[in-house]
């Protein structure tokens, strides 16, 4: 198996944002069954090593394609773009202000006596925003409008970070 090929080719998927996650999961399982180091026990060090590398590649490929944010970034990277470059910092002012507001909202939650309903509401809002950005990305990308796709994926990055922050807070508060 060629571990230098791109992840979409690896799973025989079209190079688009909209992919069938069921097909991805199924292909991943089939390839793992075939290439996992467990299938090469006793075949000698070289074969076992190759199996480790191949499976590591598959795990990376699956992790990249199964998460919308990483899939979006990867699609642009395949075109030679670098949406997450540290120099790439310009964001629309209204979006940044909204981010600050959301972040403050999360911080306030730790002072609320019964935070569970508020956490659920905020999680729902973030999820809705993420889904909208995924649609934005998908449409822009399909229309070859890569710059607006890049903006969408960078906005999505902010939302995903907030989701992680909220997750961590939820873990702490509801323990």
């Amino acid at each position, binding site marked *: 198996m060629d571990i230098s090929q791109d992840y979409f080719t690896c799973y025989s998927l079209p190079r688009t944002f909209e992919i069938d996650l069921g097909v991805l999961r199924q292909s991943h*399982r089939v390839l*793992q*069954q*075939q*290439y*996992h*180091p*467990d*299938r*090469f*026990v*006793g*075949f000698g060090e070289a*074969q076992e090593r190759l199996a*480790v*590398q191949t*499976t*590591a*590649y598959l*795990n*990376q490929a699956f*992790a990249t394609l199964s998460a919308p944010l990483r899939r979006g970034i990867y699609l642009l990277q395949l075109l030679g773009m670098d949406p997450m470059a540290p120099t790439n910092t310009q964001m629309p002012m209204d979006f940044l202000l909204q981010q600050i507001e959301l972040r403050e909202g999360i911080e306030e939650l730790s002072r609320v006596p019964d935070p569970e309903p508020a956490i659920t509401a905020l999680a729902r809002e973030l999820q809705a925003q993420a889904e909208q950005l995924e649609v934005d990305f998908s449409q822009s990308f399909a229309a070859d409008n890569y710059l607006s796709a890049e903006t969408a994926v960078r906005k999505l990055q902010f939302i995903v970070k907030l989701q992680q922050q909220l*997750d*961590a807070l*939820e*873990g*702490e508060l509801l*323990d």
Partner: protein
Amino acid sequence: MALLQIAEPGQSAKPHQRKLAVGIDLGTTHSLVASVRSGQAETLPNSRGEPLLPSVVRYLVDESPQVGVKAEAHLVDDAANTVMSVKRLMGRGIEDVKRLGSNMPYLFEACDQGMPMIHTVAGLKSPVQVSADILRALVQRGESSLGGELVGAVITVPAYFDDAQRQATKDAAQLAGIQVLRLLNEPTAAAVAYGLEQQESNRGEQQGTIAVFDLGGGTFDISVLRMEQGVFEVLATGGDSALGGDDFDHALAEWMRQQRQIPQKLDLAQQRFLLRLARAAKERLSTEHTATLSFEGWPGGDAYTDLTLSLEQMNALLDPIISRAIRATKRTLRDAKVSLDEVAEVVMVGGSTRSLRVQERVAELFQCQPLTSIDPDRVVALGAARQADVLAGNQSGEELLLLDVLPLSLGLETMGGLVERVIDRNAPIPVARAQEFTTYQDGQTAMAIHVLQGERELVQNCRSLSRFELRGIPPMAAGAAKIRVTFQVDADGLLEVNARELTSGVAATVQVKPSYGLSDQQIADMIKASWSNVEDDRSARSLREQQVEADRLLEAVTMALAEDGERLLMKQEQQQIVAQMEQLVMARNGQDHHAIAKQIETMAKASDAYAAMRMDDSIKRALAGKSVDQL
């Protein structure tokens, strides 16, 4: 993969002969060996029919060591030469051992790598050697039961074992002369033992989420697995390494002491008496509604009247302890992003899950009856045996595939004692990930690589796995070199690290082989601390970052002043910059990262004009004496 097994007709070695392979549960208190015979996994007992081998080794002068029951008999009269619970020492340094153990009656000595060595009459013994002696006994039992030489063994390890602990386990097998087919996580082995991949769920599909609830004497582990068409995938693992069935006994003993107003200061014999009473009560209450506890034979002068303990009372005493396990379970489910009602089966492992109250509470939590039909002491070894059978190539179907995850995050030390995560906890293995770093100073030709494992943001709070140096980097400006560090974790969970400077191709590789690893307690503490210290860590991180930034600025300005300060600046301008530097040094040595950031900004503004002057100056000098077409 079958395609690669090329054998000429007639040359293939007895095609229908089964290869002999075993599964080994190398446990803290006892170990087991199991194998698949006629399609059934079974534990292999000793000649007296006992499947459990106590994990105890006694060393003797000029004789091979005794292992198991024989050794256990000498735990008291030959304590210094009789080693138990060696699993707790695996992959640990002498420092960890000192912290761990006034209750270990051995004399320890550090060897050159910091590995703890135990003084015995047969010489110094490392934990790896002691484990190897246990493994040898198990392999012998396996070979004599199965009647032939083994091709290899699957050895189980706790899911939370770090790189050092796994490596030590593998080293022990090597020392004992056993081919390790795979190191397998204990919860995965337990799920495999129930053959869950062969059952259909209620929905008629071969898939589902499984929780493995493992409550031993002193530790609690919880793992969440997904099973789909013969593939077992660990989604998350967690637990509490200071929680176990022993806590039940202590809670009951403490209740008895209070009921009879026995003074708090108990001697060893009195403690043992109460604990024995506690265990007897548990036993009685597993079939009856009340238990009478008699203090007859109490060691010590006083006499106490009988006590009655009801099932309800006992449950009330156990509940707070079980609740801790329930909380850890919920936390791990959250890590796995799985809700309670998605869990299709709960597998019970460990002697303490025999407690009916534990079974009730688990059933109540998951709203389903946990699986208890396989002996919880043997279930792990039985699962390992099935996996060994697959890996030895005895199963034609190749249906069963076990996919594990990394138990603790891996990272590298960066500037200011911070840890940069390279691979996150719970990433499926094998996994490889690369991260690029750069040099910090002009002309830097070497870089120290410090590999760490743990969940915290500061180096001092994580476990150091290995340090090595990448040398021979060609001298370049700070930030120009590109050093790519690659981490690769194999299917046994063992790490290899590579570093390469990309512009020159200079490379260094280490098989991370630390002399010691984390204590279970440390791992649990590290995971717990990463939750409770998120805030602390964050501000500590900001402080370090600002300090690094301040140092960088101070160094740059100092060097510039030394180079051309006199030439380019008026005396007063020089003094102003120096005054700003002093203020920045003061802020930098404080604890307030906001203050440092503010001072950095002021300092940068104050030196802006100077920086511009230097730039003009260097351009002028570069151009001096050159005509336009020479450029």
